[in-house]
């Protein structure tokens, strides 16, 4: 069997603070295969974002192991890109310079990086804004620029922490389609954390439902559509299977909400 891109093996995580100890994750196991798009949904406080921080190497598990391509995660890896809810662009850098921050940090050859960033700007429709500053961009464009920044280091794995939640509905649908297309074309693996169940189903190959705190995997749902090629996230929302999945997973979330 092929090596999973990410594997969490019985991971527990405790947060310590002056107020005491909180268990965010309990005995959580999860694997994501190369090229897969997996979403994590669950009630707030179920430790969804914590999972991403663990894989990004920003947090260490209290117990258990986090593996990236079979190797334990010991710190941030250049094979991993991390995208947050808001863009957090650097206002004093142009869009292109924002895109180059990752390569600068990782000492990647800047001539090549510049070519790659320009190509990504092209793909995201930002070419004419390469020399603009973030405050000249709309919310959707800013988040696209953040995507360019994340992809500039050419990561194998993308961690997406509610990257669409700060956008208006229309932009959200367009951008979801765009990100999905770019990631699938490049064969990237993606792990998306979201509150939005419809978004999770439309984008993913699998949806993982977490329990309430401390988070465990409650159930996993394979998302499959009949008839030919995989529909784009936008098309997926129109399919009959879509509502069936929505009903099923929604009920699970509802049940544990009570």
């Amino acid at each position, binding site marked *: 069997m092929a090596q999973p891109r990410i594997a969490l093996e019985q991971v527990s995580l405790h947060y310590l603070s002056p107020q005491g100890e909180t268990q965010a994750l309990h005995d959580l196991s999860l694997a994501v295969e190369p090229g897969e798009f997996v979403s994590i949904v669950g009630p707030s406080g179920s430790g969804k974002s914590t999972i991403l921080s663990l894989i990004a190497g920003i947090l260490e598990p209290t117990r258990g192991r986090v593996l990236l391509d079979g190797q334990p995660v010991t710190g941030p890896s250049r094979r991993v890109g991390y995208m947050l809810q808001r863009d*957090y662009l650097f206002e*004093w850098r142009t869009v292109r310079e924002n895109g180059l921050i990752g390569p600068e*940090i990782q000492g990647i050859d800047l001539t090549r990086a510049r070519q790659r960033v320009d190509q990504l700007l092209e793909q995201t429709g930002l070419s004419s804004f390469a020399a603009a500053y973030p405050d000249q961009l709309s919310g959707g464009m800013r988040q696209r620029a953040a995507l360019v920044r994340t992809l500039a280091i050419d990561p194998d794995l993308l961690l997406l922490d509610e990257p669409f939640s700060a956008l208006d509905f229309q932009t959200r649908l367009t951008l979801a389609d765009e990100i999905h297309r770019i990631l699938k074309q490049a064969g990237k693996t993606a792990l998306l954390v979201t509150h939005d169940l419809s978004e999770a189903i439309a984008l993913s190959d699998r949806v993982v439902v977490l329990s309430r705190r401390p988070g465990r995997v409650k159930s996993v749902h394979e998302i499959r559509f009949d008839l030919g090629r995989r529909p784009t996230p936008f098309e997926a929302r129109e399919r009959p299977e879509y509502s069936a999945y929505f009903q099923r997973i929604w009920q699970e979330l509802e049940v544990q909400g009570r």
Partner: protein
Amino acid sequence: MWQTYKRRMRRHRLLVGAAQLLILVITLVIWEVAADRYWVNPMLTSRPSDIWQTLLRLGASGSLQRHVATTLWETLAGFVAGMGLGLGVAVALWWWPTLARVLDPYLVVLNALPKIALGPIFYIWLGDRWSVYGMAIAIAIIVTVVMLHSGFGEVEPNQILVMRAFGATRWQILRKVILPGSLPTLMATLKVNIGLTLVGVIVGEFLSARAGLGYLIIYGGQVFQMELVMTSVVILAAISAVLYLAVTWLERLVSRLLHLPVRN
């Protein structure tokens, strides 16, 4: 519509400017007339025409230039040294957060302490020449440290998270996010500091110096030459205005070059 609006705005601006000039002129005229008619004692108040004469006399003998140059040089050197040292300490406090926690009460006390009280100590430790610099730096450095360090702390934590996720070192985070992100704070600190340094220099000169405008003011007071005191104060006012404008201009320039919002 817009034309009328623009015209009205320009008229308003002209009006404000005229009023500002008028206040100056009226003050000077009343001052001159009051002293001339002995409504007030010119020995105590001096008068604008005397100040003008004194200015010309000092300028002709070259002593005006010497005193102005001394004060200016001390201010600029103290300003640069205070900013540099303050920036260094602020970076150290950011780098070692525990150090910042440990030193916090000391910074609070030093910040609250009127630095002028340290004058005699500097005089004894550093001598008449260097105590002026000591005073200038002492008065500016604590504010610099406190303002910059809190500015560093206001940098968006998620921008730092983005850096960490890329695997950035602490040094890279400092250079690429903390420092550029705090440039508006640095500019605000410059503005505060240029004024504070000048205060430090004048106080330092009061206490010990043999040259400079502070010295001239004290000397004039001691020999009861009010026109000398008044002249020095007028020059000092002009110098502070010029220095402040220079820093404002520098702020504009840096903001435009580095694309930062101008903070007022």
